[in-house]
């Protein structure tokens, strides 16, 4: 049955290749891989914008008042707008589309061995809405009053009334863009979840699913479950902004703190929404290049589920000092510190995976390993903030900023690079240059630590976030502190410059790279069974069947050190 259908697909495909124009093939395609690329490249384009914003405001902090090259003088309102939109873009338009949408679209159907997502047209619609949201956001920078500048958390009443935020058009447009983006990811998320639940290849049981697919699916569920109240809140806030209702106006009996709860009920699970896919990507890469079976597959999976559930009970730790009842802090500190347990289990299992391996230091593996090291810094610094006692002091300082950049940078940037270096051969059929990859790696990682390590000290010394010029604060204007700011800014510029080798490597390898072949890394999962790049329909030689788990490296019963999932064998080892 499956065979017949596949033959049809490949036949159809050949038939269509002649007729497909550029538009129908790359713009309005329903092919999951093309949609994945669309998300990937849109995400990278938005990352360039977000990175440019970071460059502008870091230059302003290091050299306050002077004209920033390629921008000009940074006014206070421009600074607020840059900071706000840097945060929004990096989370909603970079981390989410690249890690969940691009990787989910590209990997899920290939890894579970089917020909496309279950709803290809819904998938296309999801990307189109996402693109629209990005356009609305970018347009909001150019309307009268400028882009929204009330921080990515958009606390009312500042975000609700133009007389407070001075961006009568920027604020509603920002909110509409975020709402559209949420709709796009709800559509995409339902598609991912349904695909992974229903469309698995024959023989693929629960524990034969590669961990990255699990992670993306669990992340989509977390997103769906957490974002609903925010959608309701966004409607309410939009009415406040545009129509003049008083949902969040205290003088009319509303409560601005309600928005904080609605936002953070989403905002905290959102961290795990982007974390999990990155963890999954790292797991794939580590297993392949350490030639090791993932240590405690089920343990990691259960820890992930536990993490997901716990993440719904911690949201108010973002609000310890923001006027919520202080008694609530007891509960939320407890749950917050408990969340260190599943995260620690996952990280320990990852580190244990390295034990007894045969580690190849390819660029992808270097990025994966650096993810673990950097994320560990981000993770442990969270304890100071999750503990309500120290959070009184550290809240909204640069300590927080450095902490979440040590989590989000590994997630969004290192995770993305890991994925691109690892799956590039599958995506485009050619290998990337390893030497340039390593130059890119060391430049990025060292410069990254150069940016954010100093910020921990600035934060611990009491420097608050979102302030455009520290010269106004005598305690913060000292030369020692200014030196640290300059150091961070220079590191940022160096890090941005080190992205140029990556871009050149990426583009040159498209044409000049070594041909990859089906399985250049000798990996086990199903995407390596398909040709590189996979054609429309993915598996022209017939849909694969699955006989074992995804990480059977160095199995004692086998000569080769890898054992593809689709290769028939006389036993089904492990993972019963």
């Amino acid at each position, binding site marked *: 049955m499956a065979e017949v259908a596949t033959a049809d697909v490949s036949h159809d495909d050949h038939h269509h290749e002649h007729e497909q124009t550029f538009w129908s093939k790359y713009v309005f395609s329903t092919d999951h891989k093309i949609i994945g690329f669309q998300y990937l490249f849109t995400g990278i384009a938005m990352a360039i914008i977000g990175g440019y914003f970071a460059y502008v405001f870091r230059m302003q902090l290091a050299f306050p008042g002077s004209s920033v090259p390629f921008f000009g003088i940074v006014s206070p309102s421009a600074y607020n707008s840059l900071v706000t939109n840097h945060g929004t873009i990096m989370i909603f338009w970079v981390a989410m589309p690249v890690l969940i949408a691009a990787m989910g679209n590209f990997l899920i159907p290939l890894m579970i061995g089917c020909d496309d997502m279950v709803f290809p047209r819904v998938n296309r619609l999801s990307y189109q809405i996402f693109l629209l949201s990005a356009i609305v956001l970018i347009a909001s920078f150019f309307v009268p009053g400028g882009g929204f500048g009330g921080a990515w958390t958009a606390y009312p009443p500042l975000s609700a009334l133009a007389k407070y935020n001075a961006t009568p058009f920027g604020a509603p447009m920002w909110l509409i863009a975020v709402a559209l983006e949420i709709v796009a990811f709800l559509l995409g998320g339902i598609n991912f979840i349904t695909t992974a*639940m229903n469309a698995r290849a024959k023989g693929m049981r629960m524990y034969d699913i590669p961990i990255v697919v699990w992670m993306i699916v669990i992340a989509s569920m977390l997103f769906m*479950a957490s974002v609903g*109240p925010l959608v309701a809140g966004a409607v309410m806030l939009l009415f406040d902004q545009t129509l003049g209702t008083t949902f969040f106006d*205290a*003088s009319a*009996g509303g*409560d601005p*703190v*309600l928005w904080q*709860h609605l936002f953070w*009920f989403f905002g905290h699970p959102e961290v795990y929404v982007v974390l999990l896919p990155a963890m999954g990507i790292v797991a794939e890469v580590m297993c392949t290049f350490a030639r090791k079976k993932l240590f405690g597959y089920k343990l990691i999976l259960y820890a992930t589920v536990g993490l997901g559930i716990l993440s*719904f*009970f911690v*949201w*108010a730790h973002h609000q310890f000092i923001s*006027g*919520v*009842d*202080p*008694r*609530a802090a007891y509960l939320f500190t407890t749950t917050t510190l408990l969340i260190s347990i599943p995260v620690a289990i996952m990280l320990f299992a990852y580190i244990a995976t390295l034990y007894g391996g045969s580690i190849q230091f390819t660029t992808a593996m270097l990025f994966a390993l650096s993810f673990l090291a950097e994320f560990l810094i981000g993770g442990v610094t969270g304890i100071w903030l999750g503990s309500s006692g120290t959070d009184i002091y550290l809240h909204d300082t640069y300590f927080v900023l450095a902490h979440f950049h040590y989590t989000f940078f590994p997630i969004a940037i290192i995770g993305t690079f890991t994925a691109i270096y690892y799956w590039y051969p599958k995506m485009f059929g050619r290998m990337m240059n390893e030497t340039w990859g390593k130059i890119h790696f060391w430049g990025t990682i060292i410069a990254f630590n150069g940016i954010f390590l100093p910020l921990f000290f600035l934060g611990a010394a009491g420097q608050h976030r979102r302030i455009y010029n520290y010269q106004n604060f005598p305690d913060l204007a000292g030369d020692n502190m200014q030196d640290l700011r300059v150091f961070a800014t220079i590191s940022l510029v160096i890090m941005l410059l080190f992205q140029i080798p990556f871009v050149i490597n990426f583009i040159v390898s498209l044409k000049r790279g070594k041909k990859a072949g089906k399985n250049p890394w000798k990996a086990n999962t199903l995407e390596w069974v398909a040709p590189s790049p996979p054609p429309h329909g993915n598996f022209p030689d017939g849909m694969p069947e699955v006989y074992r788990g995804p990480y059977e490296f160095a199995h004692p019963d086998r000569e080769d050190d890898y054992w593809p999932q689709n290769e028939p064998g006389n036993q089904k080892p492990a993972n019963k």
Partner: protein
Amino acid sequence: MAGNSLKKYNRIYVALLILFIVSVLGPEIADIFGMEGLSRMALILPTAFGIAIVKAYMVAAHFMHLKTEKIYAPYILLVSLALMVVFFFGVKIDIMASEGHNWEKPYKEPTESSASHHGDHSESHDDDH
């Protein structure tokens, strides 16, 4: 078999209608007997919300076929509901109170409602809530 299911749907529908009428009658009866305060609550809460839950259960179980659906579906929906309950109780201490530990809201309830002709119940209900 087929006819049976149709009959079942009809039975459920009739039951729903009866429940619906009872739920509307609850507050009317309370008004007629002039019930106030606790006794009014005791009547309205079960007739309005108790019956709403029963109706929702009947629609979900029989019309949406959740009773015969694979176990995934009811779990998905129950987890969703449970998380909303978590949200409600996590937020309650702040939003559903006019004062807490070391804070208070100076906001005063308007004494007169926007529709003045129905303003007579006000005092007693302030206490109930």
